[in-house]
């Protein structure tokens, strides 16, 4: 806990921009594909040429509605677009088409995963609105270069209430939002690629008081970790100022990931006088109730529901459920491996350790990093049926990840099948006992610990493939004499 947190409380609100999964831009038929040459995906509309008119993209509207449904927001049957005016070289029209007083979605909340033993916390939302992205600037020594490929790319801006109280909670909120956006196919929400971006509003106030302190805004945050670090830094900075008797200036800060600190932006460009007014080029957006119902009927199970189901039906801990649910592909994989398995917890553990390790070590997406879920299920069924040991299953799994072969074939090929044949095991146990008369005498004289020694010897003699349960039972009988 940072110094001062026993005395002060942080009050944090997040503004998240997510790029909607559309093929074309919000108001024109230009492609949104990533990686085109500079100004290769632009036209007179997204370049702000005189006389052009915007025409709204249906898919963008439906995805914004999806976001609203996923976040339990109220979908406005009637909303309008507004012009947000400011000058910046990446904004060709001199205004951004956004929404101000009448967003597509009002209110709502995002549920954070429960900490073990606690109720899940809800972070309330103010709004979710549609807007267009700006272009991109690249700064060079003798000037700045502008690429308008991103200009007009559809975004939703998701604005939270200042309900967040710590850097950790901000991270949890972002991860929960990320999961929602990906589950519902709204956005691929990759922070490092800019398809999910986050601005943070931070203030502090003495604990026990209600009045909000002066806030600062932090920009330039492109990973969950940077968001957490920037908040920690900013909260400490503000507390230090207040403790020294100073005042917080309302200003915008940039996060410097190299020096790990925030610093005020030099330009005074953002006097925040955007002069919003209704966009005269776009009549109001009507969202009929049957559209909302149609979108609702296509919503998948959302992360919070899935977490609750895993805890309730599979008796997983909230932590385990959270790890599995964080990425939809991982949770889908887990469920696809389950048929025919009795021990769901073991399957959950397997996915959390072996499957996630395979993804991490190969740095590939799940579908390429791990065997098909049915094959993993088949491998785990062999463990349950005691056909192979857990260790053998790990060996087989590692091989399957590389070869792409099935579970049965891999176990056979590597000779990993467990020997449960009592006669064969009994023979080995007899040999081991006969070869160690000294240990046998000591064991019978009361050195119980030597039991493990005999098990180890028998297992070694059988190349690790013997069913440990059978070895244990037979040795117990035989050693007793």
């Amino acid at each position: 806990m940072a110094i001062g947190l026993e005395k002060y409380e942080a009050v944090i609100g997040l503004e998240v921009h997510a790029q909607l999964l559309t093929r074309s831009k919000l108001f024109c038929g230009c492609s949104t594909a990533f990686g085109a040459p500079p100004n290769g995906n632009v036209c007179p509309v997204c370049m702000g040429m005189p006389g052009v008119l915007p025409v709204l993209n249906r898919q963008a509207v439906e995805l914004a509605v999806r976001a609203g449904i996923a976040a339990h927001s109220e979908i406005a049957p009637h909303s309008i677009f507004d012009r947000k005016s400011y000058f910046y070289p990446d904004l060709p029209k001199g205004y951004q088409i956004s929404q101000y007083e009448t967003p597509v979605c009002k209110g709502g909340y995002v549920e954070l995963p429960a900490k073990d033993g606690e109720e899940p916390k809800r972070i309330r939302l103010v709004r979710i609105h549609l807007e267009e992205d700006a272009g991109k600037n690249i700064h060079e020594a003798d000037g700045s270069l502008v690429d308008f490929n991103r200009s007009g790319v559809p975004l939703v801006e998701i604005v939270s209430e200042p309900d967040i109280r710590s850097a950790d909670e901000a991270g949890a909120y972002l991860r929960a939002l990320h999961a929602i956006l990906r589950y519902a196919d709204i956005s691929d929400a990759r922070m490092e690629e800019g398809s999910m971006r986050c601005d943070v509003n931070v203030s502090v106030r003495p604990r026990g008081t209600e009045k909000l302190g002066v806030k600062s805004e932090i920009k330039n945050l492109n990973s969950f970790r940077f968001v957490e670090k920037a908040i920690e830094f900013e909260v400490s900075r503000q507390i230090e100022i207040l403790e020294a008797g100073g005042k917080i200036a309302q200003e915008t800060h940039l996060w410097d990931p190299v020096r790990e600190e925030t610093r005020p932006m030099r330009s005074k460009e953002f006097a925040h006088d955007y002069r919003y007014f209704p966009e005269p080029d776009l009549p109001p957006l009507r969202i009929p109730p049957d559209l909302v119902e149609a979108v609702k009927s296509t919503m998948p199970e959302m992360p919070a529901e899935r977490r609750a189901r895993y805890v309730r039906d599979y008796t997983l801990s909230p932590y385990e459920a959270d790890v599995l649910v964080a990425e939809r592909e991982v949770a889908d994989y887990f469920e696809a491996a389950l048929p025919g398995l009795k021990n769901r917890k073991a399957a959950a553990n397997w996915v959390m350790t072996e499957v996630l390790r395979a993804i991490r070590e190969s740095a590939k997406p799940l579908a390429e990093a791990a065997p098909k879920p049915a094959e993993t299920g088949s491998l785990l069924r062999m463990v349950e049926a005691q056909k192979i040991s857990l260790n053998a299953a790990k060996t087989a799994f590692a091989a399957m990840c590389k070869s792409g072969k099935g579970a049965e074939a891999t176990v056979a090929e590597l000779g990993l099948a467990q020997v449960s044949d009592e006669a064969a095991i009994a023979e080995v146990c007899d040999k081991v006992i006969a070869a160690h008369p000294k240990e046998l005498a000591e064991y019978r004289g009361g050195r119980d610990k030597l039991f493990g020694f005999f098990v180890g010897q028998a297992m070694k003699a059988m190349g690790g493939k013997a069913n440990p349960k059978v070895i244990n039972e037979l040795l117990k009988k035989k050693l007793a004499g």
Partner: protein
Amino acid sequence: MAEKKISLEQVRHVARLARLEMSADDEARLQADMSSILAYVEKLNELDTTDVPPTAQVGEAGTPIRDDAVTNHPAPEEMLANAPARQGGFFKVPRIIE
């Protein structure tokens, strides 16, 4: 004309937001013009609109909407044709500080 509805400060503020540089004469003239425009529009306040919902737009049928399809074909040269300055496929502008 009666009292000015717009102060000189407001004129300067709007000019700054619009990146316009103005002489003292311009400022005075615009103050008068903008004030008289506001006075003219203020006529509407004589109507009682208590029960009238705000209308930002006509076109009650709602905005036209298009399918999500890529219909434009890249023509970067055409798009860059009128650029005052360029570097490769980029527009070039005076260096932006932050």
